[in-house]
């Protein structure tokens, strides 16, 4: 499609545009359903069975079961919808956001009180900031990827 998507050269960032929205429609609708207490209870009682009520892809269901928010985003999820899963689990927005960086909860929180993630090196893909693909997962320096 000929419309401009100038936002594809930003590292570690997915823009929830019409295409993502179409891809993630049922995933996000599932998330919205968790705003009702009775649905949260049913989901918690049997996550797989509850997910199977929705016409989601297997990859979307797996991402939800694994609480892998990056995978959820790749499958069309949007953070404000996905936050309903976190709320069901009793997580804060900071815990959810941090979970996508590969950093520990402590390290992420410490980064924030220290002024947040620096923009330097994180504006364009191909620079050398900590959000660049070649530096993922973060907070693992010196460790082998597992």
């Amino acid at each position, binding site marked *: 499609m000929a419309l401009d998507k100038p936002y594809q050269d930003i590292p570690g960032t*997915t823009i929830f545009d019409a295409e993502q929205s179409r891809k993630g429609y049922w995933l996000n609708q599932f998330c919205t359903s968790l705003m009702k207490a009775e649905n949260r209870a049913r989901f918690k009682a049997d996550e797989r069975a509850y997910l199977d009520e929705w016409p989601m892809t297997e990859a979307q269901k797996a991402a939800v079961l694994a609480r892998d928010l990056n995978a959820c985003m790749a499958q069309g999820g949007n953070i404000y919808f996905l936050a309903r899963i976190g709320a069901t689990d009793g997580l804060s927005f900071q815990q959810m956001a941090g979970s996508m960086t590969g950093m520990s909860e402590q390290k992420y929180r410490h980064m924030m009180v220290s002024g947040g993630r620096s923009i330097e090196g994180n504006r364009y893909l191909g620079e050398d900031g900590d959000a660049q693909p070649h530096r993922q997962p973060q907070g693992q320096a010196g460790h082998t990827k597992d």
Partner: protein
Amino acid sequence: MARITASVYTSHVPAIGVAMDLQKTGEDYWKPLFAGYDFSRRWLRDNRPDVIFLVYNDHATAFSLDLIPTFALGTGAQFNPADEGWGARPVPVVQGHPELASHIAQSVIQQDFDLTLVNRMDVDHGLTVPLSLMCGEQDPVHGAWPCPVIPFHVNVVQYPVPSGQRCFQLGQAIRRAVESFDEDLNVQIWGTGGMSHQLQGARAGLINREWDNAWLDQMIADPAACAATPHIDYVREAGSEGIELVMWLIARGAMSDVAGSGRPPRVAHRFYHVPASNTAVGHLILENA
């Protein structure tokens, strides 16, 4: 006639509401943030409006993917605080102002803005956190917000969101609409959201203090130039959720200097703090000079 006397700008982070609702505002983490609003609470008591026109965005709360309005104006009589998944915030019900809201709707649609009018919706932290910040804790039953509030929702969740330019022009249209209302009302317009923050992906936690403050400088002094900032600059420099700042341009567009008064607004208060949860908090009070 009704008139817009001042504009207020503030971030609307959910964690701020949680801190107030759970009486954590005295903790070391939160003290410096709330200190930035001490002046503002006194100012609001001394400059109590008859109506607040509150620009915010719903965060997938009242509007799911079933229906996504670009601009939604609340013309209803009241709006309940929403349950966003952690239970509804213990704050008073928001009383609307259907007469003024309907009047603004009529005027602004005739100025070629394609509004969606809403009589029934719950309002989430985007609307209630700014009220809490500016008014302090209010008992949900025995307390009350200081005046009626007209909620105005802007889509900043699903792209494309309206441009800064469109928002700035909308603010000007709202000013014209308010000034054509016969009743003598003191109206404040509030713009909320921002500043730099990103809630997703490997770049989550991004804060750009320099960009935020340069943007604030320009928004105050040269709002027309600020309104020309393209979306991509917000996303790249201020994070994917930094795009919320376009909502501030609606409030700014409604100030009298933009309509040609010649006098720049008076900066009654300016505050900036990092962090509240994932977010840089910005706050401004501008009075028409």
